[in-house]
């Protein structure tokens, strides 16, 4: 069964927001001792926009996501979500943000439903059981809800992590290599889900990936990182023109490799 996305927000809905900035990163620097993983990173992210972050291993992609999630404190710089300082309003902001990574699983000994129920309570959802059933249906996992999480394949696990990430109707979704290790078909389905969800719910998505075709297919803009610095930021077509590159791959090798 092909997964479907339920449209929740309508332009007449009071929650509907026109395209506007939901995340502002200003001069973000993170140094671990003498090594700086991020140097002077600045960018913004608007509602409904998908920003693909690319760069070689060690470029600072994961450190950037960890800073945006509050798992790593920056050395300097500012992070603002919805116009508010992240570190002063952490709990309030994280209620509207969510995260998934192919490298972070959910507890294996709990059932799918139990795992999501715990997070539904953590995110303060009004009708936790209904919302859990809803997201499990979106990701085609409803029939498996009573099974232990350890029985899932890696593709199903990623779908469960994405289900967790969408539980709270996030206005900003941070994804760390969401399709890494998935077979092409499951990766394609995962990409479709992310794309459809961002379009329909106008959720801003920032994702990291090593798959340039994937980045090209779903990103509104890309951010190329190398050695902790931004080498390029903008719409792919515009960047290709600016750097006189024929393809994203050529652009990537010229800027980041």
């Amino acid at each position: 069964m092909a997964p479907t996305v339920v449209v929740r927000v309508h332009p007449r809905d009071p929650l509907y927001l026109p395209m506007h900035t939901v995340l502002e990163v200003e001069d973000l620097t993170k140094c671990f001792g003498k090594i700086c993983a991020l140097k002077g990173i600045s960018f913004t992210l608007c509602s409904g926009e998908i920003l693909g972050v690319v760069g070689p291993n060690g470029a600072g992609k994961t450190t950037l996501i960890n800073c945006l999630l509050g798992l790593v404190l920056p050395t300097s710089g500012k992070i603002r979500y919805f116009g508010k300082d992240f570190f002063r309003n952490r709990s309030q902001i994280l209620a509207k943000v969510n995260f998934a990574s192919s490298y972070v699983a959910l507890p294996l000994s709990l059932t799918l439903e139990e795992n999501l129920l715990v997070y539904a309570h953590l995110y303060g959802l009004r009708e936790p059981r209904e919302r859990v059933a809803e997201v499990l249906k979106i990701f085609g996992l409803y029939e498996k809800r009573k099974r232990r999480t350890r029985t899932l394949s890696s593709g199903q696990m990623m779908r469960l992590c994405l289900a967790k990430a969408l539980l709270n109707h996030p206005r900003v979704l941070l994804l760390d290599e969401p399709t890494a290790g998935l077979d092409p078909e499951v990766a394609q389905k995962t990409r479709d889900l992310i794309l459809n969800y961002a379009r329909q719910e106008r959720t801003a998505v920032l994702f990291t990936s090593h798959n340039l075709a994937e980045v090209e297919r779903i990103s509104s803009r890309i951010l190329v990182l190398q050695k902790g610095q931004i080498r390029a930021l903008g719409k792919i077509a515009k960047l290709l023109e600016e750097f006189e590159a024929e393809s994203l791959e050529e652009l990537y090798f010229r800027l980041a490799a």
Partner: protein
Amino acid sequence: MNPRRVFAVLLRQIYLYRRSFTRILDVFYWPTVDLLLWGFVTLYLEKAGTEMLEKAGTEMPHYVSFFLGGLILWNILLRAQQGISVSFLEDIWARNLLNLFVSPLTISEYLLGLVLVSVVKVLIAFLVMGALAAFFFDFHVLVLGGSLLPFVLNLCALGWAIGLVTMAAILRFGQEAEILAWALAFLFLPVSAVFYPVEVLPPFLQKLATWVPSSYVFEGMRQVILEGSLKLGPLLKASLLNMAYLGGSYLIFLRVHHGALLRGTIPKIGE
């Protein structure tokens, strides 16, 4: 402080235990083994000692009551400590810490959730040991009367303080420090005077025992069994020490957590 988020931390552990026979067994296993082993050893020694003392024309002290009372109360401290530090380890083993720390859950809510988990474990251990002691050895822990509540609260407070320091060590040094979750509380065992009075300790350990709140609890327990009354002064001192230790260990945990955020080690814990 959001009560639903605190409940979510407890709910996660309830789900975990509900589905794990070995974990449930662990909650009952050690209290049962401890109580039966030490109960029968004490019974044997008391029997042998009574015969000897009868010949000498003196009376045997309440060794069974001292031992079993001490054992039950010591398990309260141990379970309170392990209730928070092992639950923290469960989140590390399941690589769930990262998901928790990127949710709106605050550190104090997380810690309070773990404290609730430990309260449940303490209650189970207390009920199991209390029932076994009554059934096999005719020792009723409720003989401690009204003093039982301050005893339990003080032991839990020290257990949580040790648990917080254990968690801070795990956060700072990684899983290599996880052995502390089972070992650290036992450092306090000799100077807590669980099975013997403080006066039998060498002078330097007696001085050390004055800084260990649990030593006042165990001395108080023996006093209640022997005299049926309790001096409030030492218990008050224990409570003040516990407040200081609990506050101090909370600050240590916060400081270590802040250091982990600066060093970026939280996403790597459990790898």
